């Protein structure tokens, strides 16, 4: 499957700028993200990783001053086009947040709610079990489905949030430092889980953890701010290349820990 076959892209950006008011937090990003691969976004704090990630499922819409120019294309459609409803975008592109944020409801309802509001007509019990299994949480919670999600540990809560996202069967899953609030063992479980999930989903993950990016991702985008404090992707390549033979000196400094 080398060369001859053009890879399929889940989503791509074309000269994407993201503004907060007059401040361009992210400038000129053009990248193609391959289907059923894990793409990591790395870079120093404040360089616009979260901003870029949230642009993919239009979560930035909730910041009143924010707007984008350029395009984010999914199956040839611009997600910021006039005819596109952001609610539909978020159903297709799910998101897992930095801090686990389950609903203050039962474990079962945490999974079923998203499916229900999106009009799911199948067998809910099955969907809940399936999603929890996919998130490697089923065995731990199968007897606690009626219990509040807050009774779970942080790592379990984060996997519940992943299960909740899987339950609405998105095409892409965005993760913003999903393991940064977790201990090493929970982190490892999430990483294993991502390897499992990429068989069915395209995953884009923001991480500060270089080893994590190197371990889990297939592609890595290196972001950095320019002289105007505006962030941009300075290098985007296979993860192996980024970590062994980066083209940009700044990337090399950053991934080897010599940055700053």
């Amino acid at each position, binding site marked *: 499957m080398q060369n001859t076959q053009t890879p399929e892209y889940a989503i791509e950006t074309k000269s994407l700028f993201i503004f907060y008011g007059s401040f361009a937090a992210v400038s000129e990003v053009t990248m193609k993200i391959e289907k059923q691969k894990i793409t990591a976004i790395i870079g120093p704090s404040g360089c616009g990783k979260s901003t870029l990630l949230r642009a993919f499922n239009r979560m930035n819409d*909730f910041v009143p001053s924010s707007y984008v120019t350029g395009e984010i294309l999914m199956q040839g459609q611009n997600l910021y086009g006039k005819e596109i409803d952001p609610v539909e975008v978020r159903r297709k592109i799910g998101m897992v*947040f930095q801090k686990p944020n389950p*609903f*203050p409801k039962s474990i079962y309802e945490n999974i079923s*709610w*998203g499916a229900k509001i999106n009009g799911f007509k199948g067998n809910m019990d099955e969907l809940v079990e399936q999603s929890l299994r996919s998130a490697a949480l089923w065995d731990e919670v199968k007897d606690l489905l009626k219990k509040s999600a807050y009774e779970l540990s942080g790592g379990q809560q984060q996997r519940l*949030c992943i299960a909740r996202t899987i*339950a609405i069967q998105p095409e892409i899953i965005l993760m913003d430092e999903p393991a940064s609030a977790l201990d090493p063992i929970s982190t490892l479980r999430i990483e294993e889980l991502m390897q499992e999930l990429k068989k069915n989903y395209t995953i884009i993950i923001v991480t500060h953890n270089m080893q994590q990016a190197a371990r889990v991702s297939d592609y890595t985008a290196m972001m950095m701010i320019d002289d105007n404090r505006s962030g941009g992707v300075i290098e985007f390549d296979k993860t192996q290349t980024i970590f062994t033979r980066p083209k940009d000196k700044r990337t090399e400094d950053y991934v080897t820990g010599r940055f700053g």
Partner: protein
Amino acid sequence: MNPTHNHFPEGPSFRSTLNTRYRVASVWQALFFSALLIAIISLTALIYDVVDGAFGYVAYDYKKDPATFTSTPLEDLTKEELLTTLQANLSSGAYNKLNNEKAMETRLRGELYTLFLERLIQLDIKKTWSFTESIMRAGAIRTEAAEKYPDAKLEFRSWLTPQFLTSPMSSKAEFAGVRTAILGSLWLVGIALLFALPLGTGAAIYLQEYAPKNWLTGIIQMNINNLAGVPSIVYGMLGLAIFVRVLAPLTSGSMFGVTDTNGRTVLSAGLTMGILILPLIIINAQEAIKAVPDSLRQAAYGVGATKWQTVWHHILPNSIAGILTGSILALSRALGETAPLIVVGASTFISVDPRGPFSKFTALPIQIYQWTTRAQSEFHAIAAGAIIVLLVLLLTLNATAILLRNRFQRKY
């Protein structure tokens, strides 16, 4: 700068600056403590004053000897005996009038007994003493009563009795009760809540979740905050102009075929109270909604929820306890308001229960105000009794609010 050079005081001079710091601290501490002390003293004085009025000695006699009506001791009279005695001794006109107000057979023994005391033997209060006097000068009171009112009986009584709670208004303090006023107050806060809770919650949701943050919503927000501080009498004027006058066909019930009232109904007053507490409810509800963390909104939007689904399934359920708590506290303000009720036209003497939104009404604070303006000391005593009733109602409301808050407090 030379890092080894020490700019801090050391030894005795350090200790002396430390002592100065402690002195300043202890002065402030003393000030805070005296503030607390003054608050406690004022509260104690308030409670003492009320209790002082509501209990104490009373000297009374009967204008007519009970023996002329019945040979049975008063306490042992049965309902039937009371009924026949009343029928036999009241003029037939007076008896029929009473019967028309409420059929005599259906009245309880207590009610008939009150009528017996009021109409036949005509219990007459000579003098009342406060609780403090009754305790401190019991002997002097006894001699004074024996000298001045040789025929009177002297009795230590509580003006706050079950009967006081269940009797309607009367022109004689010893038979008057707060039943009509309690029911009126309950109708008032009920109508106010029905009106202001949905409206206030809706406005708060709109302001917090939907309204864009611009100069217009800024002005609206500022006005709501200011409205919460507008003197209540102004709301009274508003209620008089709008509910009593302009909306008279609605508030008097004439639209619905009610003919015997004008716009000065419990509905008008309840709506006025509703307007009065509306800004409080909006502000409290906004606070409750603000307390719902953004991470929860993001979670909901993240699985493809619309704004309405997020509000309905997450924001409301997670803020409703706070909204209710705030509303109850707002209600307790409405319960104690007097001025707007006077303006809107609460009845000052009314003995029929409010039966519906178009009834005339009175309320506890009105009743209290009314009684305290009377010259006779026994009215001051029942005013004190009514104040205790009002305070108990207020405390109950506040306790409910606290229970609600503790019960539904959420961690995120």
